[in-house]
């Protein structure tokens, strides 16, 4: 037990997720609900456990209360180990002064002491923004076999999308020879997934050097990886071909939820061999009423459903009254859709109410100009009065927040 750890995971969970607007007013992006009972961070955490990594530092900074409480002592993911386990790592003050995390690399730099406690051979850097199932152990094995200093997980993306990503240029052996951040004319279609395995002793030195160079960005993509390439370290690409989704925007968050409902998309939450763990609510099982019609959807515990649901993801404790219709939408925990309301192509945040007869969102084909169309979003704790119409692409934030 008190032996060293082969690999420690460092999970960057400080992202504000400002492009998720109304949904991240008072919670960090990794805490955003997903998939009917999960939060985004459940995916990297469950991946760690399923990959045999039992030591995870979770780097928090933005609105960490929800996230800290959610992670707690890590027990829901079996990460409450006496030696190792999950630890939230907020920024802190030292005798030299106080510093917020200035970038992804700086966040790890400030927690070198945490990693050193476990004297790991390797460190895997993860982000709390992605939905995917991945065996990190396979990637670590690849890193070892290749004798690499750094291994970067890459996904083969369509050429037309490549310019949205950090792109790796590799030689025939899979070694990375060059790297371009969001290139206009991509030379490859291998996009970085933001998942890195480093040999810790190497990374440790690059982090210190990076910190001591005031002119450099304190970021993996902008500094650490280019610096390692310049120094001719061995960087290799690890190809991943499963489902992977960056849920950085409202559209992609919506899509990622809809993907679960699609039997042709390989993100099976029901797989007993790769369980996704999460903190479970204490609620009675759902009740589906006499007047309900529910198809092509997921519905969680504690819901009372007497309306119509199609192609939707309904989180725990939601009430959908008689005559209400929810299609192609996501309803987050504790919200109420009143009688006769209609919610289409929309995301409704936690503990919000959609009044009787209100209409949220619209089908794409109902909008004349395609540019006017988009997902409608109701924030957390919002009360939409009966009869109100919230158009496509509209957003109603929690007005109690400044």
């Amino acid at each position: 037990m008190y032996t060293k750890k082969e690999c420690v995971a460092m999970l960057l969970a400080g992202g504000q997720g400002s492009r998720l607007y109304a949904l991240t007013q008072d919670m960090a992006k990794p805490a955003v609900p997903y998939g009917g009972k999960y939060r985004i961070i459940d995916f990297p955490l469950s991946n760690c456990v399923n990959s045999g990594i039992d030591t995870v530092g979770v780097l928090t900074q933005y609105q960490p209360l929800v996230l800290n409480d959610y992670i707690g002592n890590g027990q829901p993911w079996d990460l409450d180990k006496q030696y190792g386990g999950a630890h939230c790592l907020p920024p802190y003050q030292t005798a030299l002064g106080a510093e917020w995390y200035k970038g992804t690399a700086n966040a790890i730099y400030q927690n070198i002491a945490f990693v050193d406690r476990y004297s790991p051979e390797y460190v895997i850097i993860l982000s709390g923004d992605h939905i995917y199932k991945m065996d990190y152990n396979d990637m670590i094995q690849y890193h070892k076999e290749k004798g690499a200093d750094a291994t970067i997980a890459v996904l083969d993306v369509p050429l037309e999308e490549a310019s949205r990503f950090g792109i790796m240029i590799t030689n025939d052996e899979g070694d990375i020879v060059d790297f371009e951040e969001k290139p206009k004319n991509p030379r490859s279609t291998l996009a970085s997934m933001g998942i890195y395995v480093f040999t810790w002793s190497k990374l440790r030195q690059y982090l210190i050097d990076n910190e001591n160079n005031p002119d450099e960005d304190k970021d993996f993509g902008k500094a650490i990886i280019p610096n390692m390439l310049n120094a001719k370290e061995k960087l290799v690409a690890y190809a991943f071909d499963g489902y992977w989704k960056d849920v950085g925007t409202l559209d992609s968050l919506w899509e990622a939820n809809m993907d679960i409902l699609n039997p042709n998309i390989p993100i099976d939450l029901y797989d007993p061999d790769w369980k996704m763990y999460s903190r479970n609510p204490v609620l009675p099982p759902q009740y589906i009423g006499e007047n309900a019609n529910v198809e092509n959807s997921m519905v969680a515990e504690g819901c009372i459903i007497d309306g119509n649901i199609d192609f939707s993801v309904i989180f725990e404790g939601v009430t959908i009254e008689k005559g209400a219709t929810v299609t192609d939408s996501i309803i987050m925990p504790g919200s109420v859709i009143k009688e006769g309301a209609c919610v289409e192509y929309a995301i409704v945040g936690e503990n919000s109410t959609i009044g009787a007869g209100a209409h949220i969102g619209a089908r794409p084909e109902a909008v004349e100009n395609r540019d006017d169309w988009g997902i409608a979003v109701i924030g957390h704790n919002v009360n939409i009065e009966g009869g109100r119409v919230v158009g496509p692409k509209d957003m109603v934030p929690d007005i109690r927040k400044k």
Partner: protein
Amino acid sequence: MSLNKNILGLIFANMHEDVVPELTRQRTMGSVLFGGRYRMIDFVLSSMTNSGVDEVGVVTKSNYQSLLDHLGSGREWDMARKIGGLHLLPPFSDVSSGIYRGRLEALYGISNFIRASAAEYVIMSDCDVVTSFDYDAIFDAHVKSGADITAVYARANLTMEDASHSNVFGIDADGRVNNVLINPVLSGECNIALNTYVISKKLLMEIIADGAAKGHYSFAKTILQDRCGEFKIVGYKHEGYFSKITSIKSYYDANMALLDLDKRSKLFLDTNPIYTKIRDNPPAKFAIGAKVKNSIIADGCIIEGTVENSILFRGVKVGKDAVIRNAIVMQDSVIGRKCTIDSVITDKKVTITDGKILTGSANYPVYIGKNAEI
């Protein structure tokens, strides 16, 4: 500030197994499944958590491996405590404990445990009642009335069948229990015992010692019935929603009652959540063609067929064009394509292969045993 350290909870997990012999062949009464995701013990144990009773002993006798698995360290009930918390009291764990014949003998078996507790009072409950007890109020009434024993009852209509598996109290104008009928032959409205008692630890220890000396083993017979003139036994009328399980029929009805939203909301109070073991299932999935009406669906179910007036436990799979009506389907059962099952209770992990038809009736539901494949 709270009841902490002052009350010891004792739960008898094996009592009343004879009323549902099918369901208790491989488990205790406490581990009988109920209401889509619960075990019978969840109701009484959650009530203890919610009332601040945080030192609890669970007395078992046999077949209790599933109960051990269910309770684990007691974490889900917040009973994985350093001070107090959940204690399992199996047979032969102590020199004095063995296979007991009744509550009094069971108490004798755990007398070292009771003695070691710092509590002044003891609350005893069985696992045959589905309800949310307010032990705070029961305890306050006990202290206020100056009773030797407070016996909880409810006013309800009993059938002849119910009564033959129940105890009934006669209660005088002052609320004192003046008569105790054990498994009587009667029917109609009466004061039905909910097998829940408050007593001081001191008196309980005296009763246990006396019972052991005299070879008595039944608490209901030799204490409540024979000595109800001698002890001040005061009735406490439980007003909340409850179901008492007295037969497989009443078990079936008690489950089906949860389809009544009003009853459901009276059992699952916001202030008194019912805790249970965590399973890490995804939410229930409704496929194309699913038709679900008036049913309770637990997490992890995958439904492709029709479900009406039924209760589906965790992880149940319902195939395409299958029809389930008036049924209780326990966890991880698989109902094949084009099956029809009506008025059926399937135990855990039952497989009904494609196209089978099984029909019982509401007053005599068909029971399918654990792991059966049909």
